[in-house]
């Protein structure tokens, strides 16, 4: 391990889970710190600011959502939540409170790493102002507001572009319906998911090779949408 290795903070009260997360993250080139409580996590995060936080929700001392909120008051570190199945409402709440993404227990390491890298890339992109996102044949130039497929310009209406832009800015991570509806149509339309469905259908028809089997604009049922991670098409060095 060298100083250049990014630091991951793993917060989970189960020792066995911390063990495999440490192994998996170290294999992927991370340095790892562990905390088994919310208080411990907050203390560690101030002492050694991490580059990534993996946060389990079932902590003995604090509600995971509260840990997240406290952390967010002073840190915008990429953060992935470990959640249990079948509670979509909770996932949405955590995403709204500032989590970048979630994985559902039990999960495979590859899935967690894909989410983590996507979240970390976003912070890099925001800080360096990298304007172009490439996913396979699709290229989105956020500065010039130009979308191309295989070099051919795709004409999008302003709202279609806005939808794609919001997803591209979070490429690889899930974006909630509520966030998209609020950004595009405003607060009164937070419940009107069919607006999104209708525009997503149009967008897929323009961008996907087969709109009935999207490979780029993915649906997360009950939560939102996810623009597929650029790494999958253009593997980036970890």
């Amino acid at each position: 391990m060298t100083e250049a290795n990014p630091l991951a903070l793993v917060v989970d009260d189960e020792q066995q889970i911390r063990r495999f997360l440490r192994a998996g993250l170290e294999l992927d080139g991370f340095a790892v710190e562990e905390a088994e409580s919310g208080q411990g996590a907050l203390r560690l995060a101030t002492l050694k600011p991490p580059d990534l936080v993996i946060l389990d929700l079932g902590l003995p001392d604090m509600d995971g959502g509260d840990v997240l909120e406290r952390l967010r008051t002073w840190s915008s570190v990429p953060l992935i939540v470990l959640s249990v199945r079948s509670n979509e409402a909770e996932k949405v709440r955590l995403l709204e409170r500032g989590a970048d993404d979630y994985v559902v227990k039990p999960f495979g390491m590859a899935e967690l790493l894909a989410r983590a890298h996507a979240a970390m890339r976003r912070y890099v992109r925001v800080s360096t102002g990298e304007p172009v996102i490439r996913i396979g044949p699709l290229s989105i130039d956020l500065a010039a507001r130009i979308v191309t497929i295989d070099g051919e310009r795709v004409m999008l209406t302003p709202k279609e572009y806005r939808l794609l832009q919001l997803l591209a800015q979070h490429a690889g991570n899930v974006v909630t319906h509520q966030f998209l509806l609020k950004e595009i149509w405003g607060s009164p339309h937070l419940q009107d998911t069919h607006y999104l469905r209708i525009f997503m259908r149009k967008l897929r028809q323009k961008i996907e090779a087969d709109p009935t089997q999207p490979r780029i604009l993915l649906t997360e049922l009950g939560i939102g949408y996810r623009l597929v991670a650029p790494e999958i098409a253009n593997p980036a060095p970890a």
Partner: protein
Amino acid sequence: MARFERIGRELRGSVIALLMVAATTGVVYALALSLEIRRGSAVYLLPVLLAGWHLGLIPALVAAVAGVLMSGYFFFSPYYSFYIARPNEFLHLVLFMVVAAVVSHLANSMKQQTELARKREKEMRDLYAFSRRLAVASSAGEIYRAIEEHLANLVQRKVVLFGAGAGEPGVLPEGMSLAARVHDAIAHVRDGHIPVSTVDDGAGDVWLIRRVSEANADFGVIAIDLGSVPAADIEEIRQRVDDVLADAAATLEHLDVARALDDAKMRSETELLREALIGSVSHELRTPLSSILGAATVLSNSPAVAADERLTSLAGVVRDESERLNNDIQNLLDATRVSRKQITPNSEWIEPQDIVNSALERRRRHLAGHKVLLDLDSNLPLIYVDAVLVEQAFVQIVDNAAKYSPAGSPITVAAKRNGSQVVLSVRDQGAGLSALENGQIYERFFRGQRHAATTSGSGLGLWIAQAFVNANGGKIVAASPGIDCGTTVAIHLPFATPTTEPEVGPDD
């Protein structure tokens, strides 16, 4: 109030009586003038009789006095004077008053008797209807409804029956609440301390509270709001309620409801215990499973293991098997939710093919051994469902197709519109269904005899899927041409049109 009303009524009656006397006088006087008759006093019996019959004693007496005075005025000397001089005039007066008294008394008692007869007839009719309902009742619920309605009819007040079975709270009619004292009394009676009690609810109403059956507390408790009745009447009402309930309790006993209720109580307790156990065990299993599955995926990516094909495949086995175990646990948890009736759809508008794609993505590894053919209509209407529940149901169906069809055989997944429904279907070329099996596959824990030895499973999958789809207003339909001829299982979901459309302007 009643007093004033009565005085008013008597006054009105008296005025009418006087008017009748006046009218009689008019007629008699006209006749007397034209026919030169000066004998008309007997005619004044007519208003007395009429008043006595229809208006009661006092108006009749008024008519009698007025009649005598009038006849004295017109027909006896000295004419045109109210002076009663002769003894037969006085006799008239006495006679008229006696007639008034007798007629009004007769009329009154006859009215009362008619009233009583009518009331008795209605009670008999009600009682007859009640016993007929008891006779045909086939469930405790029907008997309870009959009791409630009959008693409410009988006392013309509110009646609340607190159901049978332990712990079951009384179901109060909408917008009704009971005073704390009444509640306490009901609990007291239900717990078997006393069989019957009367309690004042503090607002002036008296409640009669009684066990449905004196002998068996399991039959529940009935509470009757008697209103503000004198203590003397309570005893009478209580007697009648007792009679009604005696019949009803006998019928309840007869139906063997007592035993059924006992059984239900015990069954529901066992069920609860079992489900609590399943719930906690499943959660306990989840945590180590997460570690096992996570560790397996780390192992298969580690350079040492990745370099050795045998080790990679072993890590794959650990992963696949723990995923399967996870599915089984999920099924147990879902089954618990279904049987506790905790399925509450959280509906949203969704593209039908998103559900299909998401389910297939979740089962990609599972389906790797099959050729999946997709047939998704591109322009399906949106559906308003809980997408997560429907996806879970679809995953179950996909799992079954993969499980009961040979490796390498094609599985066709389709999403189509059919009339007012969207149909998501999975067709395999596997084991198929016999007609008998087709009737049983939705049953909890059903597993085909043919597969018992060769394929593992819990028999929960389709049962859960069906509950999830039903909760969304849809249904699951399975069809098979026969054994080994493949199966098509389809989810039928109704669709509606969103009430609001996004406004699409030229700038959108």
